[in-house]
């Protein structure tokens, strides 16, 4: 048997468990309970102020979380990538590590911290929890691109008389932009699509769009739930158009966490 045929079982598997399920989302989104074509699921979303508000609010929270992660994460990634600060590889691992702890445990830990410090649970806790959950996703890609940056370019800029601010804005920032973009996508996407997290962080006071999707699916409104999922998928699809192939190249080198 030729070795290229070895991809056949997996091709079949991907068809059944990845491609068909995604097509089913589209199918359910555009049909009613009897299976007839309809746009009413989307109309329902547009006419339903609560769902609409949750959607916009979720995007807002995702944007705020992304900005805070960028502001906190960029300097950290920069320091980690500079050799003369001699930060060790373990330090990088320490920043990535929380990513691997169950998201619910991390969230409950945040709730515990707020309780411990007797801070109220609400919007503040929500943003803190989201930043806490997703900051590593911002630091890691930026660190990766900064680390690969050619240091002599910075030296050249300095030699040619650029001040530190100029060096940063004209050399370092543009060179690190692929990492910044993939960091933004990697924080924005999970933030906008989480469910259950927001409820835990705000004692059920704030609901995000992911929860709306889950609740509808749970309550048997599969078609409406599928339509909401498709809307989320579109939002994320638009976001991921901004990522370029450079990240894929990074992934393919594989291995190191």
């Amino acid at each position: 048997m030729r070795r290229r045929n070895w991809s056949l079982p997996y091709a079949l598997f991907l068809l059944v468990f990845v491609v068909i399920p995604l097509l089913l989302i589209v199918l359910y989104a555009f049909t009613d309970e009897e299976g007839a074509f309809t746009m009413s699921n989307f109309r329902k979303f547009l006419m339903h102020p609560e769902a609409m508000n949750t959607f916009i609010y979720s995007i807002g929270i995702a944007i705020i979380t992304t900005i805070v992660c960028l502001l906190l994460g960029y300097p950290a990634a920069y320091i980690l990538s500079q050799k003369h600060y001699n930060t060790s590889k373990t330090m990088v691992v320490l920043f990535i590590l929380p990513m691997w702890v169950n998201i619910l445990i991390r969230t409950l830990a945040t709730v515990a911290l707020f309780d411990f410090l007797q801070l109220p649970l609400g919007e503040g806790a929500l943003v803190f929890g989201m930043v806490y959950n997703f900051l590593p996703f911002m630091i890691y890609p930026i660190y990766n691109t900064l680390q690969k940056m050619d240091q002599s370019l910075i030296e050249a800029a300095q030699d040619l008389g650029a001040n530190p601010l100029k060096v940063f804005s004209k050399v370092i920032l543009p060179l690190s932009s692929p990492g910044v973009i993939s960091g933004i996508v990697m924080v924005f996407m999970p933030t906008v699509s989480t469910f259950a997290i927001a409820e835990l962080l705000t004692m059920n006071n704030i609901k995000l769009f992911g929860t709306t999707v889950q609740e509808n699916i749970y309550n048997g409104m599969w078609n409406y739930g599928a339509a909401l999922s498709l809307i989320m998928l579109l939002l994320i699809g638009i976001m991921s158009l901004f990522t370029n192939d450079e990240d894929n190249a990074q992934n393919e080198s594989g291995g190191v966490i």
Partner: protein
Amino acid sequence: MMKKILAKGYLWLLLALLYSPILIIMIFSFTEAKVLGNWTGFSTKLYSSLFSGGMHHSLMNAIWNTFVIALLAATISTALGSIAAIGIFNLRSKARAVMNFTNNIPIMNPDIITGVSLFLLFVSFGISQGFTTVVLAHIAFCTPYVVLSVMPRLRKMNPNIYEAALDLGATPFQALRKVILPEILPGMISGFILAFTLSIDDFAVTIFTIGNEGLETLSTYIYADARKGGLTPELRPLSTIIFVTVLVLLIVINKRAEKQQKE
């Protein structure tokens, strides 16, 4: 010098922020108080009651299910993903691009979309949800990572060794076992560990595919528990154990990867 201290200080401050919630859980796992934040003296009672069963039977059950599901999902996805990687590697470039693209979909998709899509798959075909569907769902989102960790090993391999083995009279199966397998084994191990941790960690996909026949994994247990308001105190030692385990696993993977890179 000043700059260096400031820079390091910033990193440590950020780390303190990242780790303070988990540290609080760890510290309060060594006291008996029901409510987190109450220190009633040092005690390891929560650790012993976590393992003594009894009233926390359902928690132990959930841990067991999580472990079995992760082991099954990681084993099957490692096998499926490694075979697939060899196949994809030998495909012609167009077919390979299609396979790589499809392989990336579950990685790019948010968990909730993967969860909803698999839920719709199972309900459309009238498959009742439970243990099997959770394992299948986990294989679906773990295998792409195995493919991604085996692929670089194949790319680095000298393609002539396999041909040489065949020329020297090895059957294709022997050549696979004696030549290709040892080369990709490190990638398979990394893929397995990655798949295992991803499966243990998963919440979003599990909750959509677990059905309502009483099956619980750790994530769904914690979720149900948290929604009821009170958090079972035994979850504190459990989180601590999980955190330390993940820490050790990650350091092992990283050391392996560093060694691989040096080679």
